[in-house]
Each structure stands twice: as structure tokens, then as C-alpha cells.
């Protein structure tokens, strides 16, 4: 079998050598360990030995030439070559390529772009701005250039940026309504963006509730009378405590059921805007108590004496359009809550009762649910519980 005799690597950092002298010629026999040639390396002359017994078949590299490591120097006919082929032929597992610098980094580098500030070349005196100030300016939407033009020459710090931002603000006191509009907008936008809403509507025969209410109110002085809204709040509270999946929060990617039932009651403000403070533990209070608290709540909203906690305590919200408005209201869930019940106005409508067509005061009740927590079947069950309670007001 004929073997290639290659220039071996003789050192950690040897890349090539000069073949100075052949010690054998074609036809000569060669023994394992016997020197075949002499090469000149950076370290001096070194004999290179054959690892096989056999006969020199041909000399490939000429004396005096510079040869890289691994280049074929000669060919040897070897009898002993039948033993395991030299390791070179056995495919070594590849060294993981990820480690080697990929030849063309260009593709991986496409996203590298020169920084935007093209002026960084021979920029004139550059106003020192602290990293913290730079970040604060970014947050407040103030461009670095405008920062640089501020008076003085010292370094610009965070407080300078905030002073600048304050001056830039409109002189008039910010209109509170505007701030609330932004707050509502942000919450509703986030709700639309994050919460997969599903909507269900059901018409409810409100006649029994109205009848019951008129009877109740006729037996009590003006100050203790109830309004339709509180019946709905009570019904939703009882339904929420019965079916817990609609009462709680969706946070950190999972539903947290609330232990108590606080009903967020949507109260419209004059001239626009809405707040939904909570009536606490509405499932454990009777209609009389609920009405007093609800009445007090509206009074405080009207006079602007709200307690901050009341805004965040609600575990589910009820909203209605009052006595004149659309028939059906499709509300948006108030995050992080997971459901909201809406009530349109009560209107006289044809309605079949025990096969007879009658005129009845109907209330269009809707529920919007967070599909991450509940689905349509559960929603309609929840709606039916509310409807049944309203149909049997004595249970409220």
C-alpha cells in the first residue's frame, strides 16, 4: 500500500520549513523511526523520520524548497501499512465551527450602523451632558441639541433637564380634565391592546324589578329611596361572588381571583369624563346600606373629595347610560379587572310571556369578558344569574 509522507509539524508555532537534504532516494528501504530527510526550521536543522517500514517510491518535494506543514514530501510503499490506517484518515469530529470567526461577518453585521450623531467628527466644543441627564432628556422628549444650547457652559445634569422641561410646559395650570382624559385614554388603549374581549348581550324583563322598587320606595321617606342602578350593582355583586372567575385581576400573565367583591361604579362627570370608584364588599351589604354608600360616593365625586384607594379597589365594574341613551352598551374592561357589566336604558318593547305577546320594560344587559380568563359559555351563565336576580328582586 502506498503512503504519502508529509512534512510533520515539529513545533507549536511552526508553519513551514525548507527541505535541505534527502537522506534516501527512490528504491531505498526505510525503517520505522529512521530519518528520511533533513529540514531547516526557525529552530535549526531537524531530521524527520518515517513511521513505517517500506521502500521509498518517489521523492515529491525538491531539496532547497520551502514547504508548508502537511505538504507531501515523498511516497512510500509500505508492507506494515496494513495496521490501522494512520489517524489522519479517520475523520475527527469537527471542532465546533461557531467558535471560529465566520469568514464573512458582513451578514451578521448588517444591523451595525454608524451612530446617528454624524457630527462626532471634529465637533466643536461639545457641551458635557451627564448620561443620567441624557436619559432624562430622552424620556421627556427633549433633543440633545436643545439641551446643549441652554445657558452656561458647565455640565448639564438631570435637574437642569427637568427645569428645562418645566419651563417648556404651557404656563396655564394643566387642565385636570385633560389629565383625566389622558389617564382614561391610556387605560382604555392598554385594555384594547392587551385584553382579548368577548361580548355577550341579553334582554332582561325589568318589570318585576320596577314593580318591586316602586313598592319599596313608596314605604320609605324620600331620603331612603333606592334607584334602579343600585339593584343592578347588588345583582352583579351577588353574581360575581357566585361565579369567582369574573371577579379579580389579570397580572403577571395569570388570573388572580379576588377574595372580596368590590363593585366599580361608573359615575359620569359633568361635561365628560368618567370615574369608577369602588363600593366595597357589595356582596355582603344589603340594598339599604349599598344605596347610602353609593349616594355618598356620588356626592363626593361631584364635590371632588375622592379617596385614592377607592379608584383602585374595584374587582369588577358596572356601567350604565342612565335614563336616556343607547339601547345597548358594549363596555371596555377596566384593566387589570377581567370583566365589566353594562346596562343600556330600559325601554318598552314587545316581549313574549307564556306564549302571549306583551309590552314589557326591557333592559339590555351586556357583559364583556377577558378571554384569557373566561369564555362565552361562562359569560352567558354569569349574565343569566344577574338576569334571574333582577327578575326576582326580593333576593337582592
Amino acid at each position, binding site marked *: 500500500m502506498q503512503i504519502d509522507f508529509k512534512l*510533520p*509539524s*515539529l*513545533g*507549536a508555532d511552526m508553519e513551514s520549513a525548507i527541505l535541505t537534504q534527502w537522506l534516501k532516494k527512490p528504491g531505498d528501504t526505510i525503517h520505522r523511526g529512521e530519518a528520511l530527510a533533513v529540514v531547516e526550521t526557525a529552530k535549526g*536543522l531537524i531530521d524527520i523520520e518515517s513511521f513505517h517500514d517500506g521502500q521509498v517510491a518517489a521523492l515529491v518535494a525538491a531539496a532547497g524548497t520551502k514547504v508548508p*506543514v502537511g505538504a507531501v514530501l515523498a511516497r512510500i510503499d509500505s508492507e506494515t501499512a496494513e*495496521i490501522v490506517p494512520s489517524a489522519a484518515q*479517520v475523520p475527527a469530529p469537527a471542532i*465546533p465551527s461557531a467558535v471560529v470567526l465566520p469568514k464573512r461577518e458582513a451578514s451578521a453585521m448588517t444591523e451595525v450602523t454608524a451612530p446617528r450623531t454624524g457630527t462626532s467628527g471634529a465637533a466643536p466644543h461639545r457641551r458635557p451632558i451627564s448620561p443620567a441627564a441624557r436619559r432624562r432628556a430622552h424620556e421627556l422628549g427633549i433633543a440633545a441639541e436643545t439641551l446643549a444650547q441652554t445657558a452656561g457652559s458647565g455640565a448639564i445634569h438631570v435637574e437642569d433637564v427637568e427645569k428645562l422641561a418645566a419651563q417648556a410646559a404651557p404656563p396655564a395650570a394643566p387642565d385636570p380634565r385633560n389629565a383625566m382624559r389622558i389617564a382614561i385614554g391610556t387605560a382604555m388603549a392598554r385594555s384594547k391592546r392587551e385584553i382579548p374581549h368577548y361580548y355577550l348581550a341579553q334582554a332582561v324583563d325589568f318589570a318585576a324589578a320596577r314593580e318591586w322598587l316602586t313598592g319599596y320606595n313608596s314605604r320609605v321617606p324620600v331620603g331612603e329611596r333606592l334607584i334602579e342602578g343600585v339593584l343592578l350593582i347588588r345583582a352583579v355583586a351577588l353574581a360575581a361572588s357566585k361565579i369567582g372567575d369574573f371577579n379579580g385581576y389579570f397580572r403577571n400573565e395569570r388570573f388572580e381571583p379576588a377574595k372580596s367583591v368590590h363593585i366599580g361604579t361608573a359615575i359620569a362627570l359633568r361635561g365628560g369624563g368618567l370615574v369608577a370608584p369602588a363600593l366595597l364588599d357589595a356582596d355582603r351589604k344589603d340594598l339599604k346600606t349599598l344605596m347610602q354608600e353609593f349616594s355618598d360616593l356620588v356626592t363626593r365625586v361631584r364635590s371632588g373629595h375622592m379617596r385614592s384607594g377607592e379608584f383602585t379597589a374595584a374587582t369588577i365594574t358596572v356601567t350604565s347610560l342612565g335614563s336616556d341613551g343607547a339601547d345597548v352598551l358594549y363596555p371596555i374592561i377596566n384593566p387589570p379587572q377581567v370583566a365589566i357589566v353594562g346596562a343600556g336604558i330600559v325601554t318598552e318593547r314587545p316581549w313574549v310571556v307564556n306564549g302571549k305577546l306583551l309590552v314589557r320594560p326591557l333592559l339590555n344587559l351586556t357583559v364583556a369578558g377577558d378571554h384569557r380568563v373566561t369564555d362565552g359559555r361562562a359569560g352567558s351563565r354569569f349574565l343569566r344569574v344577574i338576569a334571574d336576580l333582577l327578575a326576582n328582586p326580593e333576593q337582592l
Partner: protein
Amino acid sequence: MNDDADSALTRERGLSLLRDMLRVRCFEDRCVQLYGELKIRGFLHLCNGEEAVAVGAMRSLGEDDAIVSTYREHGHALARGLPMNAVMAEMYGKQTGSSRGRGGSMHIFDISKRFYGGNAIVGGGLPVSIGLALAQKLQRQSTITACFFGDGAVAEGEFHESLNLAALWSLPVLFLCENNLYAMGTALARAESEIDIAAKARGYRIDAAAIDGMDVLAVQTAVRAAADRIRHGGGPVFLEMRTYRFRAHSMFDAQLYRDKTETEAWQKKGPIITLTTRLKAANLMKEEDYQRLEREARAEVEAAVAFAERSDWEPVSNLERYVYAEPAQ
């Protein structure tokens, strides 16, 4: 592994010693070829010519004795019984190597064989060996520590400090100096004012003797006697093994510092030839025995090469492991 060194030379004992030396010789020669083919990288220090020191010494040391070696350690490791597959895989830097591929030729370790590894710093193992001996002494153990080093280490400060401390505290350490006449490229006479190394050791009041490092039987006998003396509280012993290395100091050495004729002269009285001649003279072996043992040795080496070739690389994700002790699994 501790058969009786003093008994008369038998065929069985002779062939066993020859087999072990041939395993080392074939391993080293194959490494030269593998280095040429870029399979083995870094530095490579071969012990051709010094096989008798490795085999003879390891034959006379106990399984629980501690061994400290140098960067010319392949013979020590194989004679000590480290599996050839693991040693070859370590030469490749594979995960299955004796040090998970992290050490390479100069850093082969095996705690199960109490083989405390090679050391790339000349003389670096000496202070460590007297520490191991101190632990054995303090724990009243019957084991000893054998420390291999070359004549080059004799010039290091650590040689002086270690021998003095070993003698001062009468520590159970056996100093085995492989004097192969060259410290890398510097002949002994150009490195040492006193070239009788055994005499140097006696200066520290340590029992010292010079041994023919080419005669495996002499080495085995001397090490056995020294080990017994130490085991029975005789304090440190120093054996200067006079030997010679047939190949370069390491890969990339043009051997400008010595003459080819000197190497050839020593090769004629090498450890393998010396034992083979003696066994044949006492007709305890024939040439076919030699051929069989060499074939078996070469086959074992090829199996180890194949094992190393198909072994996996240590994944890069393990790069930072073993810098500190890992919690017991």
C-alpha cells in the same frame, strides 16, 4: 503490582517488565506522528530512553502511595496504571481525557491512582510532594510520596528549600531524580557546579544513591529498598536515576546542544535493549516473544488512538466549570 523485586529474574517477571516498557515506547513514538498530523498540539515532552525509571519505580510503589510527576510524564502515568485510552484522549484534548481534555500532555491527573499530575514549571512539584508526605506523616499513614523530577530542577530554588524541609521534618518522601544529562538545552556540566547530584542531596543529610537508570531491575530493587526504609520511618531518600532521553527535549527542538553520536551511543544501552539482551542470554525469552509484545503494545496504542479520535470535545458551555469546587452532586 508490588511483586518481589529481589527474587531471581524469572521469564514471567522479565516479560512483564518488558511489556510495560514497550507500551510506553510505542505510545511515545505514536505521539510524535500524531503531533506531526496536528492531532496533538502545544508542547510534547517524550521519555524515550527513560522507560526503565518509570516502570521499575512504579513496580515498587504501593497503590496508595502518592505520585508527583513532571511534564515528561507519559511513561510515569502509563506505568502507574492510568488507562491508555484516557491518557491518549487527554493528548487530543478530548472530554474523555484523564483531565477532561483541559490539561493536555503536561497535565495528566488521576486521583483514583493518587497520580497528582504533571507540572509544566520545572521544580514546581517538589514543594507539593513534601506537603503530601507531611499529610501522610501527620495522619500516621503507612503510605509514602514519590516525587519525580529532572536534573534541570536541581538548579531551582525549590529543590534546595524542599530537600532541606523534607530532611528537617523527616518526611516520608522518595526523591526520584531522572538525570538525563540535559536541562532542556543545557548540559548538566554547564548548569551545575557539582554534577554528582546524589552527593548534593547528601549535603542535606538525606540518604542518597545513584542508580543505573537504564537497568529496570536495578531501578526496581533500589526503589523497593528505599520505599521500605521510608515506610518504616527512615525519613526521606534520594535516588539519582542516571539515564538519557533519546528524543528532543520537546517538539520543536533542533537539539543543537548535543551531538547525534552521543544519542546513538546511549541508544545502544537503552532500557529495552538492556533487558531483552539479559533475558535472551538467560534464555528466558526468544525474539518471537519480543515481536509479540511489541505487536500487542502497538495494537493497544492504536486502540487508544481510535478511542481518542471518536471521543467528543468538551462543549464550550463547560468552559467555566471546575474553576472552583462544584457542590457534591
